[in-house]
């Protein structure tokens, strides 16, 4: 008795679901275009700029600590303490919504770049510092003994070795940062996530669109992982016995 109405219902459902899937498909295609556009306009530049500045900051902060430069060393510790100890989202809000109260008004993208550089710089500074400290003391001493000065040894011997050590954790940081850029939607920056959110607002399809944007993030981080592996192999020359020694010409 109950079977028939259900059957007819299913039939109806099938009909509408065909229409539905077509609609979703169209939404996803539109979403893909907008999300990719946002990635080119915002997410990728933000990641590159933010991480680029972060590396410069990190290098500076790690070196002043390693070299024990007075004042700057303490300054660096305090900087790292603050930026690692507070949430990224709070830092973004403070800079974008808070600072105008003291007369600092920033374009939202610029604000995002600054906050990401400083936040990421603090983490990378710690990575670089421990990588520098992991270079054996004997390397420095050997440098002195062939007549090199501190800066020459740092430049030719210690920093290259530290960068090699720091490379895997730094790569992880880039990947983490790429994903964290989705937070900038909160301060009105039109990134990939914001692009998805806008379409969701119009179409009420959060499931599919958020899946789509997640997938695109996944593709990006997978690409970065491959790049990381490739570079690590290239860099491993002096870390592995397997590498064919370069022949001398």
């Amino acid at each position, binding site marked *: 008795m109950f079977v028939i109405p259900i059957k007819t219902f299913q039939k109806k459902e099938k009909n509408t679901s065909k229409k539905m899937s077509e609609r979703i498909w169209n939404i996803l295609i539109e979403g893909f275009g907008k999300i990719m556009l946002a990635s080119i306009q915002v997410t990728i530049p933000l990641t590159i700029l933010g991480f680029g500045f972060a590396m410069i900051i990190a290098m500076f902060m790690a070196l002043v600590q390693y070299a024990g430069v007075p004042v700057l060393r303490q300054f660096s510790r305090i900087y790292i303490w603050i930026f690692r100890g507070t949430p990224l989202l709070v830092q973004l809000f403070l800079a974008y919504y808070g600072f105008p109260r003291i007369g600092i008004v920033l374009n939202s993208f610029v604000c995002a770049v600054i906050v990401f550089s400083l936040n990421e710089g603090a983490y990378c500074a710690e990575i670089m510092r421990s990588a520098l400290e992991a270079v054996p003391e004997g390397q420095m001493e050997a440098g002195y*003994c062939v007549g090199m000065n501190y800066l020459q040894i740092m430049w030719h011997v210690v920093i290259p*070795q530290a960068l090699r050590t720091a490379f895997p954790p730094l790569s992880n940081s880039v990947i983490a940062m790429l994903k964290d850029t989705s937070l900038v939607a909160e301060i009105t920056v039109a990134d990939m996530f914001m692009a998805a959110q806008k379409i969701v607002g119009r179409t009420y399809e959060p499931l599919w669109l958020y899946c789509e944007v997640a997938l695109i993030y996944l593709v990006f981080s997978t690409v970065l992982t491959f790049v990381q592996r490739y570079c690590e192999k290239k860099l491993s020359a002096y870390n592995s016995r397997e*590498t064919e020694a370069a022949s001398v010409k």
Partner: protein
Amino acid sequence: MEIRKLVKSFGTNTVLHGIDLTVNKGDVVAVLGPSGSGKTTLLRCINFLEKADSGTMIFDGQSYDLGQMRRNQIAEIRQKTAFVFQNYNLFANKTAIDNVTLGLTSARGMEKSKARDIGMEMLEKVGMADRAGYYPIQLSGGQQQRVAIARALAVNPEIIYFDEPTSALDPELIGEVLQVMRQLAREGMTMLVVTHEMNFAQHVSNRVIFMEKGEIVEEGEAGAFFEDPREERTRAFLRSIQER
């Protein structure tokens, strides 16, 4: 090179109690002594890897106060010396040839091609020319130490300090390094060598110094030192070595 009254302490622990030492041009001086007697510390103070408390150094006729060396004085002396470490300390990110030439190109501003010629010549000398493009990790301990010696030679030093250059090596690799050092001695290189190799001390060096507890106990011509040591402590040490 001459050292007068070198004193060094770590905190309250005085490790060197006024060492006097003279190394003339062409000398090969072997420093012997039990573990912990301060041999490494002595070499490190002489090359300013450790700061001595007090003492005087006369290098090339110039007198220096070891207690308060200025940076440019240290640099000046280091340009004329070289150091070979117990654990080699080759630059891990540089190939053998780059290890040898880095002191020339970066510290002395020498042209790359000229440095390379010198570097290859030095590698040739220690029998490592065929491994010029290898990274330290791809070399055996004995090979690494020979590259380290080539690196020391490349800067054309007036004296080379060796701190137990063969102690970290497997027995079968010691020979190749000693061979190189013997060759250097024959060519008249001035060397100050901390070593446990009695054979080297006896047959290659021309003077031997015996240290114990931060003091020089005995010093003498290599032959006399081994045949007829004056001090009882030296005899005891030599006996203990022979028993091993």
